């Protein structure tokens, strides 16, 4: 048997290098799971302890009944990707075609010397069913890639973001598969390949034999010969067929069963002579193989790392209760989950607060963007104050409704990610508005608003478009300061902290509004401690909408204060 090109030591060396890089990358990324900080517990649990907890967890799981559940999870959720199927049929088709097609190509075609040849002893790449299957699996992958591209083009501007990693993934797949089809097609038309085969396997009795075989070959396999025409008489063809049966057929099925490559070879037939001269069969082969090596080496750094991270994530979360998070393994699990996210956008599509995003335009509200942010935060990237406030706003608008966790195809425990990152944000000085608004008292906020006047102009616009309770004196002019609102307010009754006590009460808010001292009400604790129980509004003898006014003050305060840098110093009002 002729030494195939793969026998080339250069390519073997490249293969081992690729494998080496890939393994090193995988190990590197897995190790990072034990090191990266992903939550408020960070810094409190040393790396060694994290590793030990994970091993302990794995051990206790393996020796328990949970392992049976694991089989079910593995088959349905990992292999059959039921989580995608239940939410989006088209996406499941896309993903399954790529996954199944490529996996079969890997096992049946790339590893044919190790796997296929040992199972089917009379295997050759060019016989059926393998030639047919190879084309089928390749087609599946291209079909899947085609759907993926189409989906991304159609959903531009909505929840799905297409970034460098997504493009790379689709491109590398396409290159591998398309180069494979082209290589197969080129081989079919290749006179060089024919000559090589004939020199090795044909023992011609007479010189006409080669011609006969050529004639038959171009019919059976599509080979294109550069030399002048030759006789294709039936007698010659019959002879060629006979020779073919003797020497070729046991390893070569008719080319037409390669139902993609054969048509491809017909397309390139006009250029066959040039391609042959330039040994396209060799450089396309290199292209194909090198693309595979690049894909392999780069795997741990590309989107394809999800092949490792996602099955692990699905498995781990599939057998544990999302409401009962084990703190000793939480940090590690979260880091793994961040790698498992493929940014498919399913979470954002089902997000309960996406209408809020529609109005506020803050992408940090949406789960997919939140995960991207968490990836950035945990990789230690420095994020500026203004961006942190945007992130914090998004994080606390989330209502932790659990939907995104239920639909995530990668099985990520998103709920835990949100709960822990909110704790972390609070520790970093970016808690939810009701808390950071307490940083200053009413007059301190008022001072800051004055200092930041230039940013305040449009703040009220959206609010006064529909209601202007706080700007319309007819609303609170009816107030006779009877103090009923304050007396029925259970929040005022519950105050025992003297600092709260110097703050203003509901009837005083009305009074400040009557006096036109709007700005002093915005930062008052009363406005933000109001539980909106509507007792004041229900009991007001003058029918003043006290609670609705307080709501409007909240909206105005938020619109103004979120534009102010809380860490900046300010000149105190000498008055």
């Amino acid at each position, binding site marked *: 048997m002729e030494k195939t090109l793969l026998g080339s030591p250069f390519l073997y060396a490249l293969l081992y290098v690729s494998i080496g890089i890939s393994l090193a990358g995988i190990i590197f990324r897995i190790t990072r799971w034990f090191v990266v900080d992903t939550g408020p517990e960070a810094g409190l649990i040393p790396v060694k302890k994290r590793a030990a907890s994970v091993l302990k967890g794995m051990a206790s799981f393996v020796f328990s009944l949970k392992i049976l559940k694991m089989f079910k999870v593995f088959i349905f959720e990992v292999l059959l990707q039921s989580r995608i199927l239940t939410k989006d049929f088209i996406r499941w088709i896309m993903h399954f075609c790529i996954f199944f097609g490529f996996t079969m190509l890997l096992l049946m075609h790339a590893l044919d010397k190790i796997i296929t040849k040992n199972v089917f002893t009379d295997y050759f790449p060019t016989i059926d069913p393998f030639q047919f299957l190879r084309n089928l699996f390749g087609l599946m992958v291209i079909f899947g890639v085609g759907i993926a591209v189409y989906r991304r083009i159609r959903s531009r501007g909505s929840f799905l973001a297409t970034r460098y990693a997504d493009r790379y993934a689709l491109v590398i797949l396409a290159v591998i598969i398309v180069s494979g089809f082209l290589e197969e097609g080129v081989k079919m038309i290749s006179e060089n390949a024919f000559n090589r085969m004939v020199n090795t396997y044909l023992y011609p009795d007479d010189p006409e034999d080669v011609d006969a075989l050529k004639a038959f070959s171009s019919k059976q396999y599509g080979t294109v010969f550069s030399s002048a025409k030759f006789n294709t008489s039936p007698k010659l063809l019959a002879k060629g067929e006979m020779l073919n049966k003797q020497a070729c057929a046991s390893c070569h099925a008719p080319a037409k069963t390669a139902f993609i490559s054969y048509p491809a070879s017909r397309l390139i037939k006009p250029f066959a002579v040039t391609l042959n001269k330039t040994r396209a069969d060799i450089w396309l082969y290199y292209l194909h193989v090198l693309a595979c090596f690049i894909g392999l080496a780069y795997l741990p750094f590309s989107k394809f790392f999800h092949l490792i991270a996602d099955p692990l994530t699905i498995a781990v979360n599939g057998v544990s209760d999302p409401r009962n998070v084990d703190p000793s393994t939480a940090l590690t699990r979260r880091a793994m989950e961040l790698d498992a996210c493929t940014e498919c956008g399913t979470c954002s599509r089902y997000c309960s607060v996406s209408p809020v995003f529609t109005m506020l335009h803050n992408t940090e509200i949406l789960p997919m963007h939140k995960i991207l942010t968490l990836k950035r935060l945990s990789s230690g990237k420095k994020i500026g104050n203004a961006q942190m406030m945007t992130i914090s706003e998004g994080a606390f608008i989330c209502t932790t409704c659990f939907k995104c966790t239920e639909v995530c195809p990668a099985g990520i425990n998103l709920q835990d990610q949100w709960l822990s990152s909110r704790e972390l944000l609070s520790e970093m000085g970016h808690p939810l508005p009701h808390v950071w608004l307490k940083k200053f008292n009413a007059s301190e906020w008022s001072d800051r608003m004055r200092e930041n006047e230039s940013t305040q102009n449009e703040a009220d616009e959206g609010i006064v478009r529909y209601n202007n309770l706080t700007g319309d004196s007819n609303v609170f002019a009816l107030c006779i300061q009877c103090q009923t609102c304050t007396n029925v307010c259970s929040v005022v009754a519950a105050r025992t902290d*003297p600092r709260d006590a110097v703050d203003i009460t509901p009837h005083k808010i009305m009074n400040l509004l009557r006096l036109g001292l709007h700005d002093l009400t915005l930062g008052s604790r009363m406005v933000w401690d109001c539980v909106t129980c509507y007792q004041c509004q229900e009991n007001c003898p003058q029918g003043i909408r006290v609670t609705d006014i307080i709501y409007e003050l909240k909206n105005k305060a938020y619109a103004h204060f979120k534009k102010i840098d809380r860490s900046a110093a300010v000149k105190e009002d000498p008055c």
Partner: protein
Amino acid sequence: MALPKSHNYDPKHVFDIMVIGSGIAGMAASLFSINRKLSTVQAGSAGGTLFTSGVLDLMAIHPIEEKKVWSNPWEAIAALRDQAPLHPYARISDEDIHRAFEEMVSFLNSVGMNYRFEKSRNVRLITSMGTIKHTYCVPESMWHCIKAHEEKAPCLIIDFNGLREFSGRQISSTLQNEWPLLRSLRVSFPGTEGLNEVHPVHLAQALELSPVRESLAARILPEIRNVRYAGFPAVLGIKKTPAICAHLEKLLGVPVFEIPMMPASVPGFRLKEVFDSSLPPKGLLRLIDKRVESVTRLDNGNFILNIGGPHQDQFIQARGVILATGRFLGKGLMSDRKEIFEPLFRIPVWQPANRVSWHRERFLDPSGHPINSAGIEVDDSFRAVDGTGKVIYDNLFIAGSILAHQDWIRMKCGSGLAFATAYAAVNAFINNFVNSSGRVTA
């Protein structure tokens, strides 16, 4: 069985009486009406009753220019009938006024709000300013105050840090001459240490819990020493006042009393709570979330009242209406630059000839101001009449402070007026529209 709710009643039902107004007169009218088994519906805002001080006046001062105080309210009323025959009391007999009072007080007692009065005597009640208020019927929790004052007994008034509009020192210093053994003590109410302001209703609610009472008593006990009474600002609970007084008496070893405060005060709040929670279960349909927007009248005399909001209509049909919408504060009467008017039925309002005469020059003129006596005039059946004395609608009755020819604040006759006129209105409806077998005729 669930009672009809304000959005859930049978729209075809024709009520006997619709009461418009939820102040003291409106509440009294509702009570008297349901006591007499008339199907009754009431609309009005949340708030009228809570502006009362919680004490019930009958009649104390006449003539107001002289500020003459009467110790026997009935003698004052007799004088009023003689000298001010247009006053609403003049249209009601003493027996009826008394019965109205009795019926109301017995209702209040039946729901745990014990009120007390002596038939022919006004009492002298000290206030949070240290002044004396002449009134008729007070909550049981204030009765000891009257006695202690009469006896000039050694008495301790407890004052709370941060409670505005109540000063034990002011009371004792104002009354120094007539009640020298009155002294005061200021403490922090349990749980409010360090707060610079506390509110009466919150204190009252807190006192409904026994640990709070025990803690408070512990702070006072060392000072009790030789006193025979202990007085508090009127914050002794909302719904459990008798139990709270009893408990504090046990803890302190002396009788306790409350001192009325400025409106809006807790005793007024209690009255409101009692009306709100006790009348609906007796059968009153209370439309707390509705105002009467407009009224039309059918050929058979029934009123159709639109109680819907801006984007929907909702109607009540009633055979009779009692209008008890009060004066300017509750918008029972309104004014523009030309005149005073009644906004709902557009009943003519008796008033001074022109706007210039509405007020006298001195703000605190002892005679008060003519505008205070403006209002709606009625016949002896308390039906609204126009300027010529002709009845406008035979089934439209008027009760309470919206009536003309009375100045309840200065005369100290507010509650009595409310009860008596409501009583008279309900009875007039029955006399005219309910036949002998109890059936209501149109």
